[in-house]
C-alpha cells in the first residue's frame, strides 16, 4: 500500500493541472506499456529458461589448452551443457558450445559429413569422427580430448604434420611404367581388382588409426596403419605393373614398415570408414614374404 501513495499524489496533481493532463496521461500510458513490455520480456526469458531446463541437455567435458595465453597454459577441462536435439552429433554439440558459450573453443571441422576427415577426436576414451558420432550413443559426461599421441596445438587441434609425412612416405599416388598406346586412352581397371582395393580407397586421412596404434605411439618411424593402407591401395592395383609393386614392397618391408604391426586391431576398431586395416597390413606382410621367397 505504502508504495502506491506517491503514485496517487502524482495522479492527483496531474489531474488538477488541466493543460498537462493529456501529456501526463500519455506518460502514464507510456510507462504502463513499458512495464508490460518488461514483464512480457522477463516472462519470455523465464519460459525459455524453463524450456531449456525441460529439454534434454548433454554435459560435455572439453579439453582446453592454449600455450599462447598465460592463464591457459595449464591444460584443463571445461564443462558445457548443450541443449540436445534428435540426431545431434558430437560436432554439432561442439559447434553449439563454441557459438553460444565460448568463441575461443578451437577445433577443426569442415564438411560435417565424414568426408573431409578433419574432426577426429578422442571422445569418451576412443578415437572417433565427431561428425559421425551420435551424442545419444555416448555416456555422460561426454569427454572430448584431442587425438592422443599427437602434439596438441590448441584445445582440440593436434599437429598432423608427422601423420602427413608418413602418408607421403609411401608415395600415395598412382604411378606406372606401362602407359596405354594413345595419349588420351584410359587406363582401365578390372572389376575384380577394383573390388579388391575398394575399401582401402575410402581413407579420409583423419588420423584416428595412427592415434589409436600402440606401436605407432612407441615407434615414431613406424609408417602407421593409414600409410600402409594407402600403400596397399596402390600395391594391389594391377595397373601399376610388377616392377612398381616391387618398389612399393621395398618401402613397406623395411624395419619400420609392415613388420611393426602386432595385430592389436586397434586401428580396425576405430576406423570411421570401416576399412579392414589389419587385414590389409597382414596381406602386405604376406606379399612381402612371397616376393622375397621367390625361387624361380
Amino acid at each position: 500500500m505504502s508504495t502506491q501513495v506517491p503514485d496517487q499524489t502524482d495522479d492527483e496533481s496531474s489531474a488538477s493541472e488541466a493543460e498537462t493532463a493529456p501529456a501526463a496521461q500519455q506518460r502514464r500510458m507510456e510507462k504502463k506499456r513499458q512495464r508490460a513490455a518488461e514483464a512480457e520480456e522477463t516472462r519470455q526469458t523465464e519460459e525459455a529458461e524453463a524450456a531449456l531446463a525441460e529439454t534434454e541437455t548433454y554435459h560435455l567435458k572439453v579439453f582446453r589448452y592454449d600455450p599462447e595465453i598465460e592463464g591457459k597454459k595449464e591444460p584443463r577441462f571445461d564443462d558445457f551443457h548443450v541443449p540436445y536435439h534428435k540426431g545431434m552429433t558430437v560436432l554439432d554439440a561442439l559447434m553449439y558450445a563454441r557459438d553460444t558459450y565460448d568463441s575461443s573453443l578451437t577445433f577443426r571441422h569442415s564438411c560435417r559429413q565424414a568426408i573431409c576427415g578433419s574432426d577426429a577426436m578422442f571422445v569418451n576414451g576412443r578415437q572417433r569422427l565427431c561428425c559421425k558420432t551420435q551424442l545419444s550413443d555416448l555416456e555422460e559426461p561426454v569427454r572430448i580430448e584431442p587425438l592422443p599421441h599427437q602434439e596438441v596445438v590448441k584445445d582440440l587441434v593436434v599437429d598432423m604434420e608427422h601423420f602427413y609425412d608418413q602418408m607421403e612416405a609411401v608415395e600415395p599416388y598412382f604411378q606406372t611404367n606401362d602407359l596405354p598406346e594413345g595419349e588420351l586412352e584410359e587406363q582401365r581397371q578390372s572389376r575384380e581388382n577394383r573390388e579388391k582395393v575398394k575399401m582401402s580407397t575410402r581413407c579420409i586421412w583423419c588420423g584416428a588409426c595412427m592415434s589409436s596404434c600402440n606401436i605407432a605411439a612407441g615407434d615414431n618411424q613406424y609408417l602407421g596403419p593409414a600409410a600402409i593402407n594407402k600403400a596397399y591401395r596402390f600395391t594391389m592395383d594391377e595397373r601399376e605393373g610388377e616392377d612398381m609393386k616391387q618398389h612399393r614392397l621395398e618401402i613397406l618391408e623395411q624395419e619400420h614398415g609392415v613388420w611393426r604391426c602386432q595385430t592389436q586391431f586397434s586401428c580396425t576398431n576405430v576406423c570411421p570408414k570401416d576399412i579392414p586395416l589389419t587385414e590389409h597390413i597382414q596381406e602386405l606382410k604376406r606379399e612381402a614374404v612371397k616376393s622375397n621367397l621367390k625361387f624361380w
Partner: protein
Amino acid sequence: MSQSYNRGLIEDFGRWREFSAGMWAWVFHKFTGWVLVGYLFTHIAVLSTALQSPEAYTTTIQSLESLLVVRILEVGLLSVAVFHILNGVRLLFIDLGVGLESQDKSFYASLVLTGAIAIASVPTFLAGVFG
C-alpha cells in the same frame, strides 16, 4: 608454429579399462611370453642338478614338489603356457588372413579354454600335497 603440449603416455596403460579384445590379447601374449622365458631359466637350473648326481636331482625335485607354493605355481605355469599356445594359434590364423572378423571371439575362446584346462588340471597338480 606454436609451442605444443606433450601429454606423454598417460593415455596408454592408464586407460586399461577401455582396452579392446585385440589389445588384451597382445598384452597377455607379451606377458605369458616373458613368464615362459623366465620359467625356462628355472627349468634349466632344476634340470642341471642332475649333472651332480641322479640323487641330487631326485631330492631337489622331491623337495620342490612337496611345497604347496610350487604346486600352485605349476597350475599357473600350465595356464600361461596354454594361453600362449592358443593365442599363438590365433595369431597364426591372423597372419594367414583367416577369420580376421572374429578375432575378438577367438581371443575370448582361448581365454575360456585356458581357464577350463587350468581348472581341470588342479586335481592332478595338487594331488598328494595335502596328504
